């Protein structure tokens, strides 16, 4: 179990992590979702004792990370799969960790097999690894000490769809056996696929948290027409409030039947009409991303 309590980290005057509290329970995969620079990695580094917190606490089953004896055998941590000595072979990297933890070298082979790195791949130097191979090696390293708790920063980054599917299976089984998993991502889709519980962070603050079912379940309807403004007018004249959602669609609190009737009454042809499942989370996430967006998309020719 991981308990983060009123955690704050400031760099100069900048609050990278701002009064963050959450809990990860055993038997579940907790997804830590947030746009770039939201404070995910910083929070995870604080949990693993690499970054000192400005205030607040982060405990692992009630224990401060530095007070855990031989922590690799109790918590598996992957913070950055690229943070490796480029000149070492994959196998050697695992061997160093196994030696540090006091594990037999047979464990290294087991882990290589688990993450599907072949013997010849494991003898290559890490600078010649693809991004996905590095992620697999990093996951193998985190699992080496057979820990009950896993902390993984962007583990799906660089994995192909088959790789993501594989990781979902791996973490699912791990959680089903009673393990605790905290994993981060800046992609809603990845988190949706893998996590049971979701914590959304933006600008250092928690903006939403709950089970996946709770967060994805949004009342209302998603509707899309060939002519969006005609649809918006139709809904307004039927007394339904709506807001833009996704690509060119609208979301309203009314149920699909009511929305369908209103569109039919105004003679607007619909392209899509469905319960707005997950749209709430997506909108919130898009909005979060838009706030911290680095470049504004200017339509070509605009302002010319």
């Amino acid at each position: 179990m991981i308990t983060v309590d009123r955690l704050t980290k400031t760099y100069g005057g900048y609050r990278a992590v701002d009064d963050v509290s959450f809990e990860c329970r055993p038997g579940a995969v907790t997804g830590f979702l947030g746009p770039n620079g939201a404070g995910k990695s910083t929070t995870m580094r604080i949990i693993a004792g690499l970054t000192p917190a400005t205030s607040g606490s982060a405990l692992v089953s009630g224990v401060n990370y530095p007070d855990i004896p031989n922590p690799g055998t109790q918590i598996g941590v992957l913070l950055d799969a690229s943070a490796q000595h480029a000149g070492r072979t994959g196998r050697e990297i695992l061997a160093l960790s196994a030696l540090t933890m006091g594990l037999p070298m047979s464990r290294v082979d087991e882990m290589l097999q688990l993450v599907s790195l072949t013997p010849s791949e494991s003898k290559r130097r890490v600078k010649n690894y693809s991004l996905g191979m590095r992620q697999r090696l990093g996951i193998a390293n985190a699992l080496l000490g057979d820990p009950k708790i896993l902390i993984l920063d962007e583990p799906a980054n660089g994995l192909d769809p088959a790789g993501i599917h594989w990781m979902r299976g791996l973490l699912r089984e791990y959680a089903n056996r009673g393990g605790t998993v905290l994993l981060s991502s800046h992609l809603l889709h990845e988190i949706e696929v893998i996590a049971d519980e979701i914590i959304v962070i933006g600008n250092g603050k928690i903006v939403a948290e709950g089970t996946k079912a709770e967060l994805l379940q949004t009342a209302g309807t998603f509707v899309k027409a060939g002519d969006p403004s005609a649809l918006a007018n139709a809904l307004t004249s039927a007394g339904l409030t709506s807001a833009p959602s996704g690509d060119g669609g609208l979301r309203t609190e009314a149920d699909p039947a009511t929305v369908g009737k209103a569109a039919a009454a105004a003679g607007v042809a619909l392209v899509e009409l469905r319960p707005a499942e997950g749209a709430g989370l997506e909108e919130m996430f898009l909005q979060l991303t838009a706030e911290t967006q680095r470049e504004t998309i200017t339509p070509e020719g605009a302002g010319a």
Partner: protein
Amino acid sequence: MSTAAPITIDTARPGVPLGRLIKVELRKMFNTRSGFWLMLSIAIVAAIATVAIIIFADGDDLSFGLFAQGIGIPMAIVLPVIAILSVTSEWSQRTGLITFTLVPHRGSIIAAKAIAAIIVGIAGMLIAYAIGALGNIGGSAIAGVDPVWDTSLVNLVTIILANVLGLLIGFTLGVLIRNSAGAIVGYFVYSFVIPSILGFLAFSQDWFEKLQPWIDFNDATLPLFDGGPSGEEWAQIGTSGLIWLVIPMTFGIWAVLKSEVK
């Protein structure tokens, strides 16, 4: 979803012993291609220096002392670089993210690195001596003279000590700068630029000339290379070592303990 059993952390489990960490740190020095060649360069450099002495020195001048000195010069560069890289690669290659999560007590890692570097330094010097001895025997045979063994055992030990102190200067720069290129440049500044500045100062200022041996570590450790220091010279190694080694290393280790690893 059903609630799973709570996970407890075992705080009674044995921690990671220092001996194991030293083994890991020694292994890290050898298990990259560049590290492997750097280690091998101890023997290569010693062999090159030996051959150069045989070729260029006058047959009558050949002595073990000459070989020991000739080999000592490149060693004074290789050994500190080994110590520097052992520390800085955790930051420059970012392996510290794993090292310091597996062992959150950074002081233990730093101690293991220092001990591993000293082990390598002493072993490297012994290998260099062995190569130098072979050179002395071979070189004398080629020149048709009897081999001269003019270096006392005490002096052999003080030369090793001098090299270990140089290695620790590298180590100190490593923990202070925590960047491979920066720390290596720092070491060259320390061993080439600073001596000429201090030398010039001593040359032009009388008061500094008297002070120099007490505060210039480079200068103070020179007697270790020839013959061994006198009582006063040991005291000078102590005072200048405090300035150049003990204080900066303490500060560097403190910075490592406090710093953010990312």
